[in-house]
């Protein structure tokens, strides 16, 4: 059974933001929302700069899922955390709880260009987040699914576009065991630096869940 995960390799990410662009384009994500973003730590400091591409990590013990008052999240057999926008009431609790800042709202991001007139009351629209390119409750590949959640690549046998198109292969997505193998091999070639950022938070300590991780950080 595949267990879907994301892995970002800080040694390789060059902050090209292609994953961000690809995601926005593939899913036609509304203004002000970035399902994926690249964060650069120690920007401009030679020898200390590191970039990370981050989106929903599809946690094993997902905080968003635990706090949602209408219980609109669900986890698929492949470990992908999805949500039903028809149920979401836009309370923002998932945004408070998520470690990675993944859930976002169309109207609350008033700082983004194109903020709407309703923004003054702080009303949030339906929550939007990364779906691991797996759509939502609607029929796989349907128009209704696309307009709410974006493309359903997983049902076409494809992986998330951000990972598949990453030119340096810093961002990997797919079956967690395979990713761990790929990364282990990479670390062996490099000889150092085995940390996989975010896996400890998202997937728990190795052995704690049914998931496996090479190492956690």
């Amino acid at each position, binding site marked *: 059974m595949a267990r879907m995960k994301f892995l970002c390799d800080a040694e390789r990410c060059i902050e090209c933001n292609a994953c961000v662009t690809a995601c926005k384009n593939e899913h036609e994500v509304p203004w*002000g929302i970035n399902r994926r973003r690249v*964060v650069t730590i120690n920007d401009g400091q030679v020898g200390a700069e590191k970039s*990370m591409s981050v989106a929903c990590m599809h946690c094993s013990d997902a905080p968003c899922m635990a706090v949602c008052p*209408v219980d609109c999240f669900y986890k698929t057999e492949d470990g992908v955390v999805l949500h039903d926008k028809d*149920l979401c009431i836009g309370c923002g609790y998932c945004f408070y709880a998520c470690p990675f800042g993944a859930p976002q709202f169309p109207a609350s*991001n008033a700082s*983004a260009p194109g903020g709407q007139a309703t923004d003054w009351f702080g009303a949030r629209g339906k929550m939007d987040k990364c779906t691991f390119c797996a759509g939502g409750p609607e029929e796989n590949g349907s128009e209704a699914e696309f307009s709410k959640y974006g493309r359903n690549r997983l049902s076409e046998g494809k992986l998330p576009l951000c990972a598949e198109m990453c030119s340096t292969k810093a961002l990997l997505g797919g079956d967690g065991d395979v990713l761990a193998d790929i990364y282990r091999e990479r670390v062996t070639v490099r000889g150092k630096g085995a*940390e996989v950022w975010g896996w400890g938070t998202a997937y728990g300590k190795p052995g704690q869940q049914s998931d496996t991780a090479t190492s956690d950080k």
Partner: protein
Amino acid sequence: MVTPKLFLTTWLLLCSVLGGAVATAVADDAAQKQVRRQAEQPLNNAPVWRAVRYGAEHSTQATGREAGVLIQSAGETWRQIRNGPITLYGGLLLILVPISIGLFYQWKGPLKLNGHPTGRLVQRFSYWERLIHWSVAITFVILAVTGILMLFGRYVLIPLIGHGGFAWFAQISKNVHNLVGPLFIAAVACMFVMFVRDNVWHSIDWQWLKKAPQVLSGKTHVPSGKYNAAEKGWFWGGVALLGLVVGISGLILDFPNFEQTRATMQVAHVVHGVGALIFVAASLGHIYMGTIGTEGAYAGMRTGYVDETWAKEHHELWFKEVNS
């Protein structure tokens, strides 16, 4: 065992708020550490990951609140507080308080007048006082019901009416709660101004308090002004204090348009939840005493008039004042 944990977690939440300020300074330091580490041990990024843990904003091309924060750990703490003690003890409070009030009612029954009603009425509340009281009361009940629905509906209503049905209720609840909240705050502010004069604490209130058990079981009456000690307690502790706490924390959550960070809203949510649950539980006591618990009290707030006997027995000093 749970209380120390609660304190600890609340403390951690507060720390995370303050932490933001410190984080920037720490981050600069971490950059220097990383430069050195990179030279000594290439590919060792430990200083970077440690810095990330402080939750500082780093640079990013993405717009949106806190987009530069790579990871925030306080969310998990908040989840444990909300889904743990707040839900559990809040729920128990909301079950046990009505049950104890019911048992008390069965045991003692309502406070009855000792004497006979004279049929002569005195005005206790003016039109404006009643208008304000009922504005506060109605908005309060709406907020309580919608708030309770959003905290406990997932556990109680979803099994009964399904996800779709409950989401419909919850959507309405959220919007009503957000709209009525500011109205409640306005009404409470008016109430404070209008009622504060008669709620100033006097030395005779201590006597009432000392004899409270006998008074509440109808054995005796202690003279009091327009409001007795319990009513004053409800005014200061409930309307004024809890009103302020719930009001401010509610506004922080209701208007997320001022770039509040998640840490701020997590703290506001915990404060709001705890305050509101205590508020609701305490209000049940007030509602009981004002309706079935005291003969003649409800008519007083409804029509504005009470019988002379009622006035003399419950609020003797006030009655004398009015009559003089």
